[in-house]
């Protein structure tokens, strides 16, 4: 029942918002709805910890009518992803400034997106998964195309086509696996996982799925849509993309590639790990030279998610655990980072790093919060990403020492671009743009609160997530 509510509530909220009847109250309504969904997901977490086999299942038995089995399942990994989604969506909605005057459709699309994302993370049937996977694309496409900045048309279409090409590759993989399942054929995850594919079949399956996920995450060399799309999207769109949507690809790696193609992951690590690693270093290096803040976040994110993918594909349980934990942490951190960016842009109307400066002297509260988020991004101990990245590097080290040493460089590079940026933006002489910078208001602080709380909670006390994952990873 909880699972159905998780899906239905955002959908109903979205439909109600689409009618436009709520007018000015749209934002508040969406915020309340998303908070209710968050509460339900907490309930689901509560029910989960007391479920004896650590899994919540729901089968609606509607095969005759719908032609698709609706099987929803929450295991530990799904739970983490659902929590991340339901935690971030209220923050994203709350962050929207009143002055921007978004139409009800904007919030309706965000709620629709939430529904699709929860669907992706909970479905336990291939076609259902694929439906949600594609559905998630439509709201974000419209958010970018309608409320985006410069060049929004070209970039949103490019983004859409790029990701759909990947999805179609996955669809071929799904259909192919379907024919391999014992008759009567079935799309349920169980029947797929029981296949025990031979190596020669694992390779094409791996390629089909990996293409879809690599585009979504994005991994080098499929990343060219990412920086552009982040830049063109309104900041809420960027948060949705970087915070949650990219995690769909990583979730896909955990959910499908690891169980379906174990031999490829074990044997091929020297083929694709260096490629991903190159992307990690490449993203971090480019971030150093970015003149504008949003692109810097985009490339930093490229580097961070690449590292997560490395952990997941390292074929080592530390790496996988760390990867999942880091999925959660990165979602929180990147949304926090975008929020800070939004606070700056809202007040100064520019995101060029060279135009900014001296904010710390006028806005001490903002400076503190920004510093915490920034340090979390470079995985300082006691912050959430430290635990995740440490585990990832540990896992990688056990798989291949040289790769791990090179991957460790990203932490140094990360410190370079982040601290350089922070110094330029926050300290030094005040510029014309930052002359009238005001500190955070109470309500803005409130939006930051859950992010800061999660950074320290996971950073100091990571075991509650790690314990959850332990059984699932095995």
């Amino acid at each position, binding site marked *: 029942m909880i699972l159905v509510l998780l899906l239905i509530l955002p959908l109903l909220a979205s439909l109600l918002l689409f009618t436009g009847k709520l007018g000015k109250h749209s934002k508040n309504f969406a915020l309340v709805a998303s908070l209710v969904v968050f509460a339900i997901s907490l309930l689901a977490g509560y029910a989960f910890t007391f479920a004896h086999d650590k899994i919540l299942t729901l089968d609606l038995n509607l095969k005759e009518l719908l032609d*698709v089995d609706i099987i929803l399942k929450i295991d530990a990994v799904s739970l983490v992803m659902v929590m991340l989604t339901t935690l971030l969506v209220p923050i994203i909605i709350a962050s929207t400034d009143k002055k921007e005057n978004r139409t009800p459709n904007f919030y309706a699309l965000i709620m629709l997106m939430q529904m699709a994302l929860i669907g992706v993370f909970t479905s336990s049937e291939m076609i259902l998964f694929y439906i949600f996977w*594609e559905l998630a694309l439509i709201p974000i496409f419209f958010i970018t195309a309608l409320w985006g900045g410069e060049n929004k*048309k070209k970039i*949103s279409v490019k983004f859409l*086509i790029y990701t759909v090409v990947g999805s179609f590759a996955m669809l*071929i993989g799904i*259909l*192919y696996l379907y*024919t391999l399942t014992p008759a009567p054929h079935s799309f349920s995850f169980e029947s797929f996982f029981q296949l025990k594919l031979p190596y020669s079949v694992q390779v094409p399956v791996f390629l089909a799925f990996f293409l879809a996920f690599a585009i979504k995450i994005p991994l080098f060399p499929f990343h060219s849509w990412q920086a552009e799309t982040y830049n063109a999207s309104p900041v809420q769109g960027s948060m949705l993309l970087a915070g949650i949507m990219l995690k769909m690809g990583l979730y896909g790696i955990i959910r499908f590639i690891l169980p379906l193609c174990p031999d490829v992951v074990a044997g091929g690590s020297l083929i694709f790990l260096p490629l991903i690693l190159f992307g990690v270093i490449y993203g971090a290096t480019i971030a150093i030279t970015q003149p504008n803040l949003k692109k810097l976040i985009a490339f930093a994110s490229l580097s961070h998610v690449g590292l997560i993918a490395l952990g997941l594909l390292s074929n080592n349980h530390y790496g996988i655990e760390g990867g999942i934990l880091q999925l959660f942490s990165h979602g929180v951190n990147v949304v926090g980072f975008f929020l800070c960016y939004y606070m700056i842009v809202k007040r100064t109307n520019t995101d060029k790093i060279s135009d900014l400066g001296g904010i710390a002297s006028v806005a001490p509260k903002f400076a503190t919060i920004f510093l915490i988020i920034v340090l979390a991004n470079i995985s300082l101990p006691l912050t959430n990403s430290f635990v995740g990245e440490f585990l990832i590097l540990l896992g990688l080290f056990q798989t291949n020492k040289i790769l791990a040493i090179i991957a460790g460089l990203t932490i140094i590079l990360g410190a370079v671009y982040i601290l350089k940026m922070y110094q330029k933006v926050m300290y030094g002489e005040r510029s014309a743009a930052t002359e009238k910078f005001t500190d955070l208001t109470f309500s803005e602080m409130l939006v930051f609160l859950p992010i800061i709380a999660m950074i320290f909670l996971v950073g100091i006390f990571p075991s509650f997530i790690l314990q959850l994952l332990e059984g699932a990873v095995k």
Partner: protein
Amino acid sequence: MYAIITISIVAIIVLFFGAIQKKKPLLPIVYIGLTLAFGLNLLGWNQSVHYYNEMYIADNFSIAFNGVLIFTTLLVFIFAPVYYKPVKRPLEDIYALILFALVGSLTMTGFGNLLMLFVGIETMSLSLYILAGSKKFDPNSNEAAMKYFLTGSFASGFLLFGIALLYGACGSMNLEEIKQYLILHQHATSGMLNIGLLLVVIGMTFKIGAAPFHFWAPDVYEGSPTLITTFMATVGKVAAIAAFFRLMNSSFAEIESSWKITLTVFSIATILIGNLSAFYQDNVKRMFAYSGIAHAGYMLIAIIALKQQAAGVLLLYSVSYTIATITAFAVLILVREETGTFSIKSFNGLAKHNPIEAFAMAIAMFSLAGIPPLVGFAAKYNLFISAIEQGNLPLVIVAIIGSMISLYYYIRPVVAMYVNPPSATSAIDSSSNYKKQIFLAAFLMIILGIIPGMIINLI
């Protein structure tokens, strides 16, 4: 059968009212007649009656497809008053010809004898030839009619020749008897039979507008009056593909190895040619012509993956294609009325002033592209499943690549509507009735996308 008779009578009544220059009652008569025919058609459900020496078979397959065809025609007629608003004369000839074409297409879905197939195809085609040229003073329309007539009658010749050869080889034109003959002789088919079958396949391929016999489609679709194009692209195509399916399913399933490869090649060529050509079109009407060709290719997959469930899948695909196409054309008619061109630019900023139309158009485009959770996706995925279960993975891969390509041109009107600044300053007037129909169609696409099983398991 009663549906066919009803519609024929309605068409004659329409002609009569036209002759005495009464304009007002024409459309109401058509609406009532078609609704009546729709109901009468459904009455025969699960009865499987054979008429006139097995000439016509009213089984669930034909009833389901006839339902789709009649409903689609009804939708076309609902859009007619807007399209023909400037025309003062009663238009009885056009309405009657559309109805006669419908009669032909209803015959095609339920034929039990090759002669009946030919009669149905000719009844439909002859009406369509005239309808294509019904904009008498427009050279494009004349050109379309002429092209359609010349190539179409050529294809009919092939079909008839093929039927004659099949008769020579099998000694009968009855589908059931041909099947019995083939069961007895399936390992030693004569050359005459193979050539006859090939000619029939060519004739049918032409009628559904699949490559390599698709060259007529873009020009004819573009030149014909838009309402007629809508009718041709939906009713004409669905009837032909249903007839094709029936022919292959009930007679030639035994010797599928002899035609399967040909059709697979046709299907691959159609999907690629249709999608790649649509990619370059700036004219939306022409783009839909190519998209129609591509969809004919997808529907051929259902024939290649012949088995019991394929009929249901084909029905779902027809429904999804028909609703989406008709919605798109309905919006196109409105837009063209306002801007005077079919160029993609005429869609600029439609969402601002006409949100309902833009929404429906976007849904139709996404459905045609096969984006979940719309009906287009459900149809495509079921089609691919049934093909893949028969071991046709390469064909499915080509089809999926085709879908990827199609996304680009389907997304263009959506982007134009939602992102580009509006070119018109005010909303395009459309009656609330028209709006309701369009919205209903969009709603159907979403609902059927959620419950496709209802249609697939129908037959």
